[in-house]
C-alpha cells in the first residue's frame, strides 16, 4: 500500500460513517415506501403509531395476512394504470429511437465540422438545454389547440424529441470527437461518400456512446411531467401525470394506497435500469465533465 492511501483509523471510521449515513438517506425512502405499498392505509399512514406499518396491524385485521395487494389491484385494474403504463411505453420507445437517430447524425456532423457555425449551433443548443420545459409548453398550447394537435401521443413524442435534442447533440458530439477522424476519412479516400463512411465505418463503432445517450433520453422521457401533464388528454395520459391525478382523490379512504402502489410500480423499471446500466450512467454523467 502506498503512502497516499494510508489513513488513520479515526478518519476512516468517520468517512465510513458519513457514507453509511448517506446510503441510508438515499435508499431508505424507497425501501420504506415499497414495504408500505403492501399495507392498508391505516397502517402506512397510521394515526397512532408509525410502527404499525412495520407489523401491519390493520392489514392483518382487514385482510387476514400481513401483506395485501389491494393497492396494486386498485391502481392497475380499478383505476386502469395499465393503460398509462402502455402509453408511457409507447412515448418512451419512440422518443428514444427518434432522438438517437436525429442525434447521431447531427452529433457526427458537429464533431467533424470545423466551421464557426458549428460552434454557434452548440452554444444555441446549450441555451436551449437551459430553457425550463414549461416555458416551451406555454408556447405550444395555444397553437396545438387551434391545429387540433393537442392530446395525442405523437405530439408528446415529437415535443420530447425536440426538447431532448440539445442534450443528445452535446453528448454524441463529444462522443464522436473521441472516435478518430482518420477512421471515416480513410474510408472516404477509398471512395465512400460521407454518408457511406458514416454508415459502414462509424455506425459499427458508435454503440457504446449511443447506448449511454439513449439511457438519458429514456430517463428524460420517462421522468417528464411538465410536457406529458399538459399536452396529453386524459385518455392518453402516461404514468407520471396519471399518478399526479390520483392525488386529487387521495383523501378518500384507501385511494392514497393506489397512488403509493402506482409510485412503486413506476419506480421498479428504473431500479432495473440502474442495475443493468450503472456503468453507462456513470460514464454518461461524467462524459460532458471530464472532456470539458
Amino acid at each position: 500500500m502506498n503512502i497516499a492511501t494510508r489513513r488513520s483509523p479515526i478518519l476512516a471510521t468517520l468517512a465510513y460513517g458519513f457514507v453509511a449515513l448517506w446510503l441510508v438517506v438515499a435508499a431508505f425512502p424507497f425501501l420504506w415506501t415499497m414495504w408500505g405499498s403492501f399495507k392498508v392505509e391505516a397502517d402506512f399512514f397510521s394515526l397512532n403509531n408509525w410502527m404499525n406499518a412495520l407489523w401491519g396491524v390493520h392489514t392483518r385485521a382487514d385482510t387476514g395476512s400481513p401483506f395485501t395487494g389491494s393497492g396494486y389491484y386498485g391502481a392497475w385494474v380499478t383505476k386502469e394504470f395499465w393503460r398509462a403504463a402502455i402509453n408511457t411505453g409507447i412515448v418512451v420507445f419512440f422518443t428514444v429511437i427518434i432522438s438517437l437517430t436525429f442525434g447521431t447524425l447531427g452529433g457526427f456532423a458537429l464533431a467533424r465540422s470545423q466551421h464557426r457555425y458549428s460552434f454557434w449551433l452548440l452554444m444555441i443548443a446549450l441555451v436551449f438545454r437551459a430553457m425550463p420545459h414549461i416555458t416551451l409548453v406555454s408556447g405550444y398550447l395555444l397553437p396545438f389547440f387551434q391545429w387540433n394537435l393537442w392530446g395525442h401521443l405523437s405530439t408528446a413524442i415529437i415535443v420530447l424529441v425536440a426538447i431532448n435534442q440539445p442534450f443528445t447533440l452535446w453528448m454524441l458530439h463529444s462522443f464522436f470527437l473521441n472516435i478518430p477522424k482518420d477512421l471515416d476519412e480513410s474510408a472516404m479516400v477509398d471512395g465512400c461518400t460521407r454518408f457511406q463512411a458514416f454508415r459502414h465505418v462509424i455506425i459499427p463503432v458508435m454503440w457504446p456512446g449511443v447506448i449511454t445517450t439513449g439511457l438519458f433520453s429514456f430517463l428524460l422521457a420517462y421522468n417528464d411531467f411538465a410536457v406529458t401533464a399538459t399536452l396529453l388528454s386524459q385518455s392518453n395520459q402516461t404514468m407520471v401525470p396519471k399518478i399526479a391525478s390520483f392525488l386529487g382523490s387521495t383523501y378518500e379512504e384507501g385511494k392514497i394506497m393506489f397512488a403509493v402502489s402506482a409510485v412503486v410500480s413506476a419506480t421498479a423499471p428504473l431500479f432495473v435500469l440502474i442495475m443493468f446500466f450503472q456503468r453507462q450512467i456513470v460514464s454518461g454523467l461524467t462524459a460532458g465533465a471530464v472532456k470539458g
Partner: protein
Amino acid sequence: MPHRTFFWFILPSLLAMFLFIAMPIVSVVIQSIFVEPEQVVVTTQTCDPFGCTDQTQVDAEATAKVRAQYPLGRFNGLGTYLDRNHLAAADVAEAWASSDSPGAFWAKLMNLSFYRALAFTLTYTFVVTPFVLVLGLAVALGVNMLPGVLKGPTIFVSLLPMIVTPLIGSLILFWMIDSRGIIGASLQTLLNDPGLSLKASPTLTWITLIIYGIWHNLPFAFIVFYAGLQTVPSETLEAAIVDGANRWERVRYVVVPYIAPLVVFVLLIQFMDNFRVFEPIVGFSAQANASSLSYYIYNDLSGTNRQFNSAAATSILTIIGVGILLAPVLIRTWRDFNRKRA
C-alpha cells in the same frame, strides 16, 4: 466537412429544435403581448310597473365570435408584464414610496405572487447548489476511501434519488413527512409537539423543498467528483504528504484545484436544473406556501380557465432569468473559442 453535407446531416435535428424550441419561444413572445378580447357585454333594460332596471349580461355568442375572429386577442403591449400578477410596476412603485424601511418594502413585495415565486426560485437555486457541491464532494471523498468491493453497490444506491422521477421522489418523501408518516410522526415525538406539521408554515415548507432538492441533486455532484478523483495523480498527493501536508491541506490544495473544472461544470448544470424547479412543488402540494416560476406558469396553463398571456409573460421573464444566469458561462466559452481560433 463541406457545408452541403453538414447541412443534410444536421437537418433533422435542427428542424426539430427550430419547430419545437425556437418557434415556441416566438409564440410565447407573441402571446405575451396580446390579451384575450374583452367579453361582449350587452345591457338590457327591463321595465316593470315599478320602474326600470338595467341588467348587464355577457353575450356569449358575440364573445365567441370575436374570439374566433381574433384567436390571439387584442394587442396589449407590455401590459401583461406590468400588471399585478407579474412585475406589478404600479404596486412596486407604491410600496417603494410608502415603506420607510427595506423590511417593510420586502414584506409588501412578498404579497405579490410573481415576486414570491421569484424569491422562492432564487432561494432554492442559490441554497441547494452550494450544498450539493460541498456534500457531493464529501460523499465522493468518503466513497473513494471505501474498499473496492463496496464501491459498486454504494454507487448503485447513491444513484437512486437522482434517477427516480422527480415527481415520484418528492411524493415518496412527502408521504414520509406526513404527520401520519414515519418522519412526520417521529419529529412530533422527538420535539414533543403533537401539532407539528411540516406542511403548515411557509418556512418549514421551503426548508422541506430545499432538503428534497439537495437529496435529489447530490448524486450528480457525487458521481462527477468521484470520477474526477480517479484522475488525481497519486504522485502529486504523495509529494504533498512528503511536504508535510495533512489530509485537509491535501484536499484543499491538491484535490480541489485538480477538480476545479468539474466544479464549474456541476455548477452550470445545477443552476440550470434548479432554476426550473417544478415537480417537487406539485409532489409536496406546496403551492400554498411556495411557488416557483415554473409552477407559476403551470398554474396559469392548467385548469379550465387557462391564461395564456399571463403564462407567456412569466415564461419570457423566466427565459430572461435563465439568460442572466448563463451569461457568465456563455461569455467565457466565447472567449475560449476565440482564443483557440487566434
